[in-house]
């Protein structure tokens, strides 16, 4: 059973011409959890997200978001979701603050300016709020992108490869944001090709391969799919990421989150 804010996908199929991308995807995302959809490039992760966010029509099967069917009740679905696509969907010519105000106005929020300012503070964007987005770095852009997605506090959030192309620090910042969201009860479906990202963030992990979900469970459950653990003694070397973050002087709290 799907709780009202969750996602339920049954037998979803989609083909582009002769090329079948999804061949019967089944997935249930419980409300208030982070579910990672893991898969290699071209596995169809983005297709799933596009169908769930009403941008694409499925060929077969059904999908419901927050209790609304994505085909027959698309308008209701749109009121319940927010999409952060693979590429930061920000208006380059407007400033960061204007981008936030724009989305708040389109969502008919009572105080667009106030909402924008609160998000600028929360995402540490106040310093660049008045600059055009065209001047932003990739990390800043992604942060603004996610901030824009949170306006109106939609109960379901789709994050399509939110950290692809980001430097390690920006990546940690995005992770921190996603964790906070889940803490507030938002349902998050996160696609990623980074295994460590799924491991760090997700309550449950589903693996999309050859058009189907071939594994779905908690990290512990997935680990049981493998042969029993063997104990080996290895010398712990710092990873290049540890070294990079240490020498550029990243703050300790975030560094601890890396393994």
């Amino acid at each position: 059973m799907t709780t009202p804010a969750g996602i339920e996908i049954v037998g979803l199929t989609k083909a582009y011409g002769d090329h079948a991308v999804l061949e019967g995807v089944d997935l249930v995302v419980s409300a208030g959890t982070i579910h990672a959809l893991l898969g290699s490039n071209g596995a169809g992760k983005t297709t799933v997200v596009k169908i769930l966010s009403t941008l694409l029509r499925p060929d077969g099967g059904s999908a419901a978001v927050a209790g609304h069917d994505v085909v027959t009740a698309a308008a209701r679905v749109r009121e319940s979701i927010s999409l952060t696509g693979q590429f930061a969907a920000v208006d380059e010519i407007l400033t960061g603050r204007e981008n936030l105000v724009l989305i708040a106005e389109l969502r008919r929020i009572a105080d667009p300016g106030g909402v924008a300012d609160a998000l600028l503070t929360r995402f540490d964007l106040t310093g660049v709020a008045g600059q055009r987005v065209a001047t932003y770095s990739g990390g800043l852009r992604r942060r603004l992108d996610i901030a824009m997605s949170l306006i109106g506090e939609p109960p379901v959030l789709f994050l399509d490869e939110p950290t692809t192309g980001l430097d390690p620090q920006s990546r940690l910042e995005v992770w921190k944001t996603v964790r906070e969201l889940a803490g507030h009860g938002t349902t998050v479906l996160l696609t990623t090709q980074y295994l460590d990202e799924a491991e760090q963030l997700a309550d449950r992990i589903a693996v999309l391969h050859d058009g189907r979900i071939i594994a779905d469970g908690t990290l512990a459950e997935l680990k049981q799919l493998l042969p029993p653990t063997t104990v080996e003694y290895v010398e712990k070397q710092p990873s290049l990421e540890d070294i990079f973050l240490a020498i550029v002087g990243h703050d300790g709290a975030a560094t601890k989150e890396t393994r």
Partner: protein
Amino acid sequence: MTTHVVHDTDVLLRRSLRHILRSPDTIITTAVTPIAMLLLFVYVFGSAIDVGSDSYVNYLLPGILLITVASGIAYTAFRLFTDVSGGVFERFQSMPIARPAFLWGHVLTSVVANLTSLVIVVIVALLMGFRTGAGVLAWLAVLGIMVLFTLALTWLAVIPGLTAKSVDGVSGFSYPLIFLPFVSSAFVPTEGMPAPVRWFAEHQPVTPIVNTIRDLFAGQPVGGEGVIAVAWCVGLLLVAYALAMRTYRRKIT
């Protein structure tokens, strides 16, 4: 729902008008080509062209106004293309926004931008000696025709804006539209053209539109040609709108 369309269109219109204010070069670039043609034809070729008693700048201006719109709508297509290729389009489509509002925001922006360019071109023409005996009503009639013509070409521009794969594809479609006035009564009277060319010139939309605006500026009564001009504008508008909306519906489902 209707109130949503109006509200959302208003928000999106203000957004793209802000784009234009931030890059006024799009308005200037739109006006530069027609102004260059105006200068070239009036001061270089004009002395060799016999258009009867009227001064050549008076004769030429209506056609130049159409060329201004034809080059201006390339930016409309470009602004749409930028939204579609950059992901802003998908963000809007996944939000609870009235579906037609996205296009109407761009279309109304196009009308505002093109009217601004037209005002610049008319001011230059006035400096070059353009004079008109048109009264308020005639000016309003000219404005009405130009708005109809702009809307028709704008909806046409929506199609490449939504479907183009590259920036070149976006701007390329407007070149034939810019050159259509050359084979009409816009630059020279059609009487001197060889029969097949003359037939084409007199049966394509530019000629009746240009002749109607010329009559309005000259303070002369507009005859049946005015009806044909408006019919062309409205007809083109309806066809372009239907095609654009069909393209849009395919794009969003």
